[in-house]
């Protein structure tokens, strides 16, 4: 495992609130290798974006990392002071956010935003940085890149803006890219282009990608492995094919059952009864047990955990009963 880029171990994020301590992430462990795309999927509030922000060191106070470790290519980064973290963000970890319409500063030309980022992280001169910005724009498929350097964000369409955002994330050839719902705000027809572009660029460079999304379809097309999150915990992890075809956690199975398919012979959509618990009301034991049809006594008592491939489920581990 020498080519592990990101290694998150037992990450715990807490929010002190007036009504008590909320555990937003509860012992989350995951890892991504060079050139690999890990899909992180789950409902809103499951903690997938939170994991991305924690890795970037951008948790909003009062949220804080209360336990666990984050390693980037062997270096521990969760304990770095803010100043050192500024040098990691953008340089070693690139980020892509959900809404390309709001990720770019509306008052700065996109060329200037690129040059700013490049010069922050490299020793290039202004002209060299500009040349590099231009080649990045070409690489992400901006037509007439030369002319578009001096354009402002509002002069780009959503898809084009997300391409610019990807170029920004790639500025310093980072080892890891955290892509938080990169296609959610885009038209369906554009989504496929953007995910294909992201995949192509990262494979070429050997960049590891953490692809956060609630869209299982995007994961199935793009990711190599997938981590399914539920109520701040990883419910299931494994290669995409396996998880999609043979989900082992009842929640994953429910998730797969609720994806509409174009094939006509599939039975009607199934849905999971109930809804994900709020963070201040996570039940003891497996967080999914109130919604799981087959939960046993152990499911209500002990939290099932996984640190590698597999499902965090007592039923699965013990062959049907718990």
């Amino acid at each position, binding site marked *: 495992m020498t080519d592990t880029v990101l290694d998150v171990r037992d990450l715990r994020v807490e929010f002190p609130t007036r009504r008590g301590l909320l555990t937003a992430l509860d012992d989350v462990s995951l890892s991504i290798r060079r050139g690999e795309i890990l899909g992180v999927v789950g409902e809103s509030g499951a903690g997938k974006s939170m994991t991305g922000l924690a890795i*970037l060191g*951008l948790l909003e106070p009062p949220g804080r990392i209360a336990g666990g470790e984050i390693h980037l290519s062997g270096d521990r980064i969760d304990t770095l002071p*803010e*100043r050192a973290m*500024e*040098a*990691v*963000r*953008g*340089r070693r970890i690139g*980020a892509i*956010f*959900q*809404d390309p319409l*709001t*990720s*770019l*500063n*509306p*008052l*700065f030309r996109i060329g200037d935003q690129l040059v*700013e*980022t490049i010069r*922050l*992280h490299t020793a290039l001169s202004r002209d060299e940085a500009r040349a590099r910005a231009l080649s990045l724009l070409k690489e992400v498929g901006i037509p007439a890149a030369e002319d578009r350097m001096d*354009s*402002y964000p*509002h*002069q*780009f*369409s*959503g*898809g*084009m803006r997300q391409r610019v*955002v990807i170029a*920004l*994330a790639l*500025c*310093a050839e980072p080892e890891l890219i955290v892509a938080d719902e990169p296609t959610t705000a*885009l*038209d369906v*027809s*554009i989504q496929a282009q953007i995910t294909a572009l992201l995949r192509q660029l990262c494979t070429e460079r050997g960049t590891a990608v953490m692809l956060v999304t609630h869209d299982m379809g995007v994961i199935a097309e793009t990711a190599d492995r997938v981590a399914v999150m539920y109520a701040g915990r990883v419910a299931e992890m494994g290669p995409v094919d396996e998880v999609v075809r043979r989900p082992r956690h009842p929640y994953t199975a429910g998730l797969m059952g609720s994806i509409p398919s174009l094939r006509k012979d599939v039975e009607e959509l199934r849905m999971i009864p109930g809804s994900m618990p709020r963070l201040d009301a996570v039940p003891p034991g497996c967080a999914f047990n109130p919604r799981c049809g087959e939960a046993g006594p152990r499911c209500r008592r002990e939290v099932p955990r996984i640190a590698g491939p597999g499902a965090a489920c007592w039923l699965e581990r013990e062959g049907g009963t718990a």
Partner: protein
Amino acid sequence: MLAFLVKRTANAVFVMLAVAFLAFLIFRSFGDPVEMMVNEQATQAERAELRERLGLNDGFLTQYVRFVTNAVQGDFGISYRNQQDVMVLIGERFPATLELVLVATVISLVVGIPLGVITAIHRDSRLAGMLQLGSIVGVSLPSFVVGILLILAFSVTLGWLPAFGRGETVDIGWWSTGLLTPSGRAALVLPAISLATFQITLVMRLVRAEMLETLRTDYVKFARARGVPRGRVHWVHALRNCLMPVITLTGMQIGNLIAFALVTETVFQWPGMGLLFIQAVTFVDIPVMAAYLLLVSFIFVTLNTMVDVTYAWVDPRLRDDTAEVGGTNG
């Protein structure tokens, strides 16, 4: 950009014509200019002759056009009070007021913007709390009270700065400036601070509110994710997005400051337009009042137009020539 400029200028001209009409109405309807100008022994014939000479027998429209034509050329007639050309009177006083207002504006921006940013960034700190409290005091204190307190502290007690007047001035063409002599600068300090106090707190509170809003935006978070250092994110990326309302406020407030200057000028016996206007009101000196009205509106309208143009310069989205060219999606 050119089309935008032309449009804005046309608007401004229209507003000025409307204001000129108001000034003209005042001019016509408050008292009889002939009565004001002739002495009591004048015969009926002399009065009629003067009336004819002043063009008061011409049609309403002809008179209005003449009024506007003269005004555009800077001719507002003769002051009733001291028989001097109104424009000369105002020309003597205007530099004093404008220098006072501009210096006060610069002070308010230079002090107000950083305070606003600091109180927004460290919004839970004790310092921010104290500044917020101070700003409430600043907003609530009337400017003449501030002026009198400043005089008391720095002129009477400490004796550092003059309490009244403008000090020595230097003439550059028709403009008399106090900025070039030590006594002129010293005399400017207290009135400018007193005029700026309210403005500082206004700018500070506005910048703070805007900053708090901007700091929550995605592009600020994304700038941090790109590795832009925190200071640069705050003072470059976020602050620039806050400047729009500050520009508006400052532009509008310069007009207000000229009006407020009336009070400050009275407290500090500053020989500006405010003092001139107060004297004109006391003597029902209509030409001076009409000229003051026109001049102040001219400043307001010009500032408004400049604010709009500056908008377009700061925010590219408002420029006509940068309309979306990228298609809807793709």
